[in-house]
């Protein structure tokens, strides 16, 4: 059990500087060895509106924003009005006493007005620094770590700005010591310092580790963080990073670079992915491996650009016309995003097909603490059957026996037993061929350039399809978590792993309901037999997903014939909180509902 588990909410309008205090707090906690999760609820607006950042920290791993707030820092009256009423006894609200008025609140909520004018003078964003200083004092963290992190944060702005912020912070810290009642439990120290990473950074790091040399993208929330990380590190790491005119261009460039022999990658959201679909089919047809990350957001069309959803499953299953092999994976956390990218590159290099990642705003923009040992950049790299010119590196030193210009011995699309045909990259002497999106023969010749031939067409369809027969054996099957003989089995996919896992613990602890958990990560290929076997033994299966129509429930049924007993679905743009799942399970086991749609109580 966690000895400490507290959450801090900072809210205001966009432009009031929510992100900086969020970063400062996250860094202080992580350096102290505390685990944390940060989720920012925001709007597609640059100035104004309402932004609300929740940082939850504990001495145990934290995977989601939790159910409660311990400290509320409203930077404007709107935030005060929205969130104060949700605080429970024991929590506190820290605010500018000169400007903001608290409203109705639960008994036992500590009101902590601060004389901001006196503490930070005319500094526009100084109140943020003062408020986090007070917060740290109240949860028992010394002043020095704040001073260090402020120095790091404002390094680029010069000594004067650092000094100004440190002085304001000290004033806030001292004011809190004198005037407010500290929390009864002090923040402990963890075993060792942790880092902090967003899912988008983890994705980019995974790509860099995998040896990505070409990254292209078009800015699209919530995937843009990957492009920005790549652009910032391109020259240092020798990665060609391009912002392209549209997502159609992105995917086509990525395929061009991959065809030349690079590991090439891109990330986008559902709308951009839709534009890429035709080209993803090209990757399948010409058997050029690429990796594409779809960071899902609430759709359709422009949808809610800054809100999360798991609504692209069927888009990605059906991406691109025709029938061709692809690999689809839905990572379950920030660290999993990091690990999945190199693993997926090894698979797609081996099987010469597109690799598609279904992430979402929740994990990709969400921040997590991370043990640096988990991010081992020295990953396994296996390029599969690829032929480079002799003497070049590229980690593929396949001897090149051919020499002539009109060589007919090399068959790019050789009809092998495994379906995998050795892939020579352009520039390799003696392996000249054409890669065509038209159906083609073993040597690459378009069958429409001769006589369209049903036997050849069938042979090539089967050759490509045959590659998938062995993929399943290369990936880890899902594992049931928790007691075998549980009353309820919760099934989730992708990013919901953490919150479902926590609700299992809550069900067992607070409600005396024994539940277990099956999280699905690999979508295609699908461990249908294994999953059917596990679920066949379950007493009551409830599928938890972040969409309206139960996209995963339908997919599970199509692949296994298994029909779940109940569903918990959320499609309001906000992620699940643990109590949403707990309450829905209670509702379902008492027979009050088969489909539960939790209400998101926080108006963000």
């Amino acid at each position, binding site marked *: 059990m966690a000895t400490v588990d507290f959450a801090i909410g900072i809210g205001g309008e966009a432009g009031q500087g929510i992100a900086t205090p969020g970063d400062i707090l996250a860094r202080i906690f*992580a*350096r102290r060895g505390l685990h944390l999760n940060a989720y920012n609820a925001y709007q597609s607006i640059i100035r104004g509106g309402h932004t609300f950042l929740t940082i939850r920290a504990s001495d145990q791993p934290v995977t989601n924003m939790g159910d409660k707030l311990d400290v509320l820092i409203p930077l404007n009256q709107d935030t005060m009005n929205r969130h104060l009423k949700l605080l429970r006894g024991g929590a506190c609200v820290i605010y500018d006493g000169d400007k903001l008025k608290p409203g109705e609140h639960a008994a036992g909520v500590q009101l902590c007005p601060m004389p901001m004018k006196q503490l930070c003078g005319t500094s526009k964003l100084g109140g943020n620094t003062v408020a986090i200083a007070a917060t740290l004092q109240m949860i028992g963290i010394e002043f020095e770590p704040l001073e260090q992190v402020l120095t790091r944060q404002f390094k680029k702005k010069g000594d004067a700005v650092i000094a100004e912020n440190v002085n304001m912070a000290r004033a806030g810290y001292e004011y809190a010591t004198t005037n407010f009642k500290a929390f009864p439990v002090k923040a402990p120290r963890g075993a060792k310092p942790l*880092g902090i990473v967003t899912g988008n*950074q983890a994705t980019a790091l995974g790509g*860099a580790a995998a040896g990505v*040399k*070409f990254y292209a993208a078009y800015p699209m929330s919530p995937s843009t963080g990957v492009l920005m990380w790549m652009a910032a590190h391109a*020259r240092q790491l*020798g990665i*060609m990073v*391009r912002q*392209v*005119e*549209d997502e*159609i*261009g992105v995917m*086509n*460039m*990525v*395929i*061009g*670079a991959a*065809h*030349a*022999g690079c590991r090439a990658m891109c990330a986008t959201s559902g709308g951009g992915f839709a534009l890429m679909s035709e*080209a993803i089919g*090209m990757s399948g047809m010409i058997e050029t491996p690429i990796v594409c990350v779809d960071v899902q957001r609430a759709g359709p069309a422009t949808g809610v650009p800054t809100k999360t959803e798991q609504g692209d499953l069927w888009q990605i299953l059906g991406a691109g016309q025709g029938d061709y092999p692809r690999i689809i994976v839905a990572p379950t956390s920030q660290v999993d995003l990091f690990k999945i990218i190199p693993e997926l590159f090894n698979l797609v290099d081996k099987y010469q097909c597109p690799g598609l990642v279904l992430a979402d705003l929740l994990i990709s923009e969400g921040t997590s603490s991370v043990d*640096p040992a988990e991010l081992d*950049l*020295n990953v396994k790299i296996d390029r599969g059957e690829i032929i*480079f*010119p*002799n*003497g*070049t*590196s*590229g*980690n593929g030193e396949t001897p090149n*026996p*051919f*020499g*002539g*210009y*009109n*060589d007919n*011995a090399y068959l790019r699309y050789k009809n092998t037993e495994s379906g995998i045909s050795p892939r020579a*990259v*352009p*520039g390799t*002497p003696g392996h000249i*061929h*054409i*890669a065509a*999106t038209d159906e083609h023969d073993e*040597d*690459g*010749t*378009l069958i429409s*350039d*001769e006589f369209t031939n049903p036997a050849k067409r069938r042979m090539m369809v089967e050759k490509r399809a045959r590659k998938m027969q062995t993929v399943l054996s290369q990936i880890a099957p899902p594992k049931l978590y928790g007691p075998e003989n549980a009353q309820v089995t919760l099934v989730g996919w992708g990013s919901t792993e953490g919150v479902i896992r926590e609700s299992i613990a809550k069900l067992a602890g607070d409600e005396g309901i024994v539940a277990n958990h099956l999280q699905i990560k690999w979508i295609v290929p699908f461990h249908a037999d294994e999953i059917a076997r596990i679920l066949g033994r379950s007493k009551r299966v409830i599928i938890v997903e972040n969409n309206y129509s139960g996209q995963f429930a339908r997919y599970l049924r199509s692949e296994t014939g298994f029909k779940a007993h109940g569903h918990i679905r959320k499609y309001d743009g906000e992620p699940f909180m643990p109590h949403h799942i707990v309450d829905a399970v209670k509702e379902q086991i008492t027979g009050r509902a088969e489909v539960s749609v939790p209400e998101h109580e926080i108006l963000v």
Partner: protein
Amino acid sequence: MTTATISEVVPPVPAPATAPQPGELTKDTYKGKIHPDWCPGCGDFSVLSALQTALFELGLKPHQVAVISGIGCSSNLPGFINTYGMHTLHGRGIAVGTGLKLANHDLKVICTGGDGDGYGIGGNHFLHIMRRNVDLTYIVMDNQIYGLTTGQVSPTSVKGMKTKTTPHGSVENPINPIPLAMVGGATYIARAFSGKQKHMVEIIKGAIQHKGFSLVDVFSPCVTYNKDNTYQWFNPRVKILEEQGHDPTDFHKAMDKGYMWGDEIPIGLFWKRTDLPTLEDLEPVLHEGGPLAYRKLGIPEDQAKALIAELM
């Protein structure tokens, strides 16, 4: 900084007895496995032949060249030439070509396609490849009609042209690729005509040798579906700029020539500038280490440490 070319980094390999010996380059070296399946008399035959001659005369080895097309009659060209080739998606040849070129800048990349492919469905990529000045050559076989879909109006069909989808005559203005490319920032802009093949060879050679993005728009008559813009129609009208003393470094004269249409239609090199760096020149990642595609993968330990330190 210079980078090693493929021929410099690839040591000669003794070929096994069964494999064909590398021979001297001849024009036949560039002949593809497949005989073109274009309609007899199609202007694209002349473009293919001119491209093969240009490659031969420039002494480019087939494995050092990639010919990349979109979709359409003319986009079948990569199947008919003995170089590395890609036959991509409709309108996407230059996007794929950009990726390929940046991944292996030692390759000579030549994109081919038609007017619908390049100026219609692929128009956005066309605009952006020009401003980026990617070092590749784009040959557009412009027949002013959609041929492979059996004769519909194209972005370059002249106003009033009757086609299967404009039975009363097109009411839309056509795109004029020459001025468009000039304002778009292309650094080598030329036009050729399938009826003047020798001239086309020189134009294509100049384009391939040009460092930067080169556009060669070719009047390549569709003998089946375009009964208006035929060889007979073009022959008396086309006037070779090189024979008229046109100065391809004079922007405004080039624009004037680009707008000429009717009784006199200029072909040849309209505009060329060599003072602008290419995208590859401007990208420090390419300055050292050879083609990206051939570089070693993985992150050295010191860099890995620095990346992790950023998170702490």
